[in-house]
């Protein structure tokens, strides 16, 4: 957000000399705030004031890019605290821990477990994006060995290592992959900063409390390092939540650029081995400002819930989530199974397919392109009409792919029955129920 006139006014010499062409400094400040006059029209503005102003035009929160190739990720860059205010930009990412205290077999097994969860949900790949490599203090050799194994796992890396010498050795082998080096704090600030900047990687910084975190960021910025991520993990869940909120709110609401970095929250540390508690906390930090959420493990049970939540929260309110148009064979449907038609709005698809799956009746769910709108909205906008349905049938070659000639349409667009029958000769168009929840009973009765 641009500086308000009042803030600019505070930077002016307040002499009302009129040399800028405005009658007063305040009038000038106002015009600068509006963008109608350039700040350099004032001959008396100090160099610091000009620097402050130019900084104020940069985004409040930095976007940090880590990893390379397919494992490149963007973090931060948010402009609002709540998704309804505008949109959230970069979804939070998940990391799972590995440790230099584990033996080779354990490491291999855990990496294999991590890689099991890798699937697609509405056009998005859902998997563990980061490996979070804990250093257990057992020597650089062990740690470098762990890093080498992790590099072969095809994931972005976070080196969680507060020993600058060991970190340096680890970065020697993996810095090309742009990992994050996490672990800078008051005691090792200079050493860690030197290692991270030499390797050109993002540095994770923390502190004993929010005030010390703030001072440490300031100190690092003072040394010219603005490639940072803030480890908000405190001694327990409460302090971690407070840190995450205070950092983000201090940045976006109170406009303090020192806090303008993405965050790490290490749940493996604060959930104390309670896997369900870890899910509850991960859900909370998905909503409240975790950028990288570190987990002890993520199985399908956690993934299905957490990735579903994340996909919802980080969807752009302006752009509805869509599923691919086409034929979705449910409950073992074949070419002779009845067809049911609906729109490509993701929520509609989930509700309808979910209900049909509960019914256990084989159904070919036909999803037509309706620009991601719901049934009635799409119908009203002309995106779900006999014409668009005919076009979809032709493009998807339904006539040849499916032998059944029964088509169920949503009850809300019962008025289209006649038009569809006219466009699709030979098809028996059946009007389905008004709401998805009535589908189970409907299709059971229908199939009986």
């Amino acid at each position, binding site marked *: 957000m641009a500086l308000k006139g009042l803030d600019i006014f505070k930077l002016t010499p307040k002499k009302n000399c009129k040399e800028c062409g405005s009658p007063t400094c305040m009038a000038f400040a106002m015009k600068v705030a509006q963008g109608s006059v350039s700040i350099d029209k004032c001959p008396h503005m100090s160099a610091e004031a000009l620097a402050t102003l130019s900084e104020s035009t940069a985004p409040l929160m930095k976007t940090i890019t880590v990893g390379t190739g397919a494992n490149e990720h963007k973090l931060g860059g948010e402009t609002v605290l*709540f*998704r*309804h205010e505008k949109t959230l930009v970069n979804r939070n990412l998940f990391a799972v821990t590995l440790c230099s205290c584990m033996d080779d077999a354990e490491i291999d097994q855990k990496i294999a477990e991590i890689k*099991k969860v890798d699937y697609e*949900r509405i056009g998005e790949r859902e998997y563990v994006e980061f490996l979070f490599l804990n250093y257990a203090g057992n020597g650089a050799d062990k740690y470098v060995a762990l890093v080498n194994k992790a590099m072969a796992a095809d994931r972005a890396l976070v080196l969680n290592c507060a020993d600058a010498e060991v970190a340096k050795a680890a970065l020697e082998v993996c810095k090309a992959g742009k990992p994050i080096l996490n672990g800078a704090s008051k005691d090792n600030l200079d050493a860690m900063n030197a290692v991270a900047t030499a390797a050109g990687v993002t540095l994770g910084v923390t502190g004993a409390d*929010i*005030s010390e975190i*703030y*001072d440490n960021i*300031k100190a690092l910025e003072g040394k010219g390092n603005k490639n940072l991520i803030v480890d908000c993990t405190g001694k*327990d*869940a*409460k302090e971690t*939540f*407070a840190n995450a*909120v*205070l950092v983000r*709110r*201090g940045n976006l*609401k*109170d406009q303090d650029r*020192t806090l303008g970095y993405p965050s790490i929250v290490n749940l493996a540390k604060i959930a104390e081995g*309670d896997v*369900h*508690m870890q*899910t*509850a*906390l*991960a*859900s*909370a930090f*998905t*909503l*409240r400002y975790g950028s990288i959420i570190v987990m002890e493990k993520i*199985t*399908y*049970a*956690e993934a*299905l*819930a*957490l*990735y*579903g*939540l994340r*996909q*919802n*929260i980080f*969807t752009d*309110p302006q752009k509805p989530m869509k599923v691919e148009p086409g034929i979705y064979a449910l409950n073992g449907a074949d070419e002779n199974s009845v067809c049911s038609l609906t729109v490509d709005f993701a*929520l509609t698809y*989930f*509700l309808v*397919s*979910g209900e049909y*799956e*509960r019914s256990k009746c084989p159904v070919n769910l036909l999803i037509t392109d309706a620009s991601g709108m719901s049934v009635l909205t799409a119908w009203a906008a002309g995106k779900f009409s006999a014409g668009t349905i005919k076009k979809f049938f032709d493009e998807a070659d339904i006539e040849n792919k499916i032998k059944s000639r029964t088509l169920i349409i949503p009850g809300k667009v019962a008025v289209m029955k006649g038009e569809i029958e006219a466009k699709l000769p030979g098809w028996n168009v059946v009007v389905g129920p008004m709401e998805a929840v*009535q589908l189970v*009973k409907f299709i059971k009765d229908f199939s009986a």
Partner: protein
Amino acid sequence: MAFTPKKQAFSAKINAVTLGTGDKSIVIGGENVLPFYTFDAPIANKPRIAVEISDKGLEGCVSDGIKAFYAGCDSVVDMAVKAQSMEGASAICLHFESADPNGENKSVEDCVALAKAVADAVEMPILVMGCKNIEKDAQIFNAVSDALQGKNILVLSAREENYKNVGASAGLAYNQKVGAESAVDINLAKQLNVLLSQLGVPDASVCMNVGSSAAGYGFEYLSSTLDRVKAAALAQSDKQLQMPIVTPVSPETWGVKESMSPEEESPEWGPLDERGIEMEVCTASACLVGGSNLVIMRHPAAVATISKFIDSLM
């Protein structure tokens, strides 16, 4: 320069609403900060969990964990009594699923008899949830509110179509608490509260159900509605949105594929019970962080986890 975070406690606050009577009664709401923002100001009353019990008992229940918990229970009343011992439970939510005229169409008299039996057997506050049929729900709420006078129950819910009936009986004649339900429509949420207040139902007798959904199933609408309601209630001091929020979580999360699909259909997903617990935990946590003052849940492991989660952030 030491960093002192700016506090954001509001002069407005959420209404405090009491449910139930006696030692086991609970108060929800009363806070003047965003959910779990204890660093801005202390939170007056922690969020609570009500355990959902279907009037069908365990019929249709797919979770081994839930079945195991209620092992030995012969009736819905037994289950309600047992649910009180669930770690983290503060209230019992009796769900009249079988009252639906398009389903089993259980009679109003039978519903009342069950509600009375449960109320006689339990000490915790009671919530009653209808079958989503507007006329039938109004009949059940009227009769149950009458029969349970003095128990200070919460009926879920009065909707746009039946608020007059439900508000006048439950809220006024029988002095119970009324839940006002709007399906993720913040304008309607406010309007319903205005209408109930114009009807004469005191603000301290009203809770809101601003909608519910499972994580992954359009949860963004609910999440943004919760955020907006709390922002209006606290930052804009909107009195018509200062009612505490009650969110039914389990009826949604136990109805989605992730929680219902048997393990043999997708073996890589692992045991059904774990998936159901995680869906319930993930969704309940997200509701609470958004601003629910009470969540309705089913699985004992999920209830225990969310209770621990709440305590860890207070």
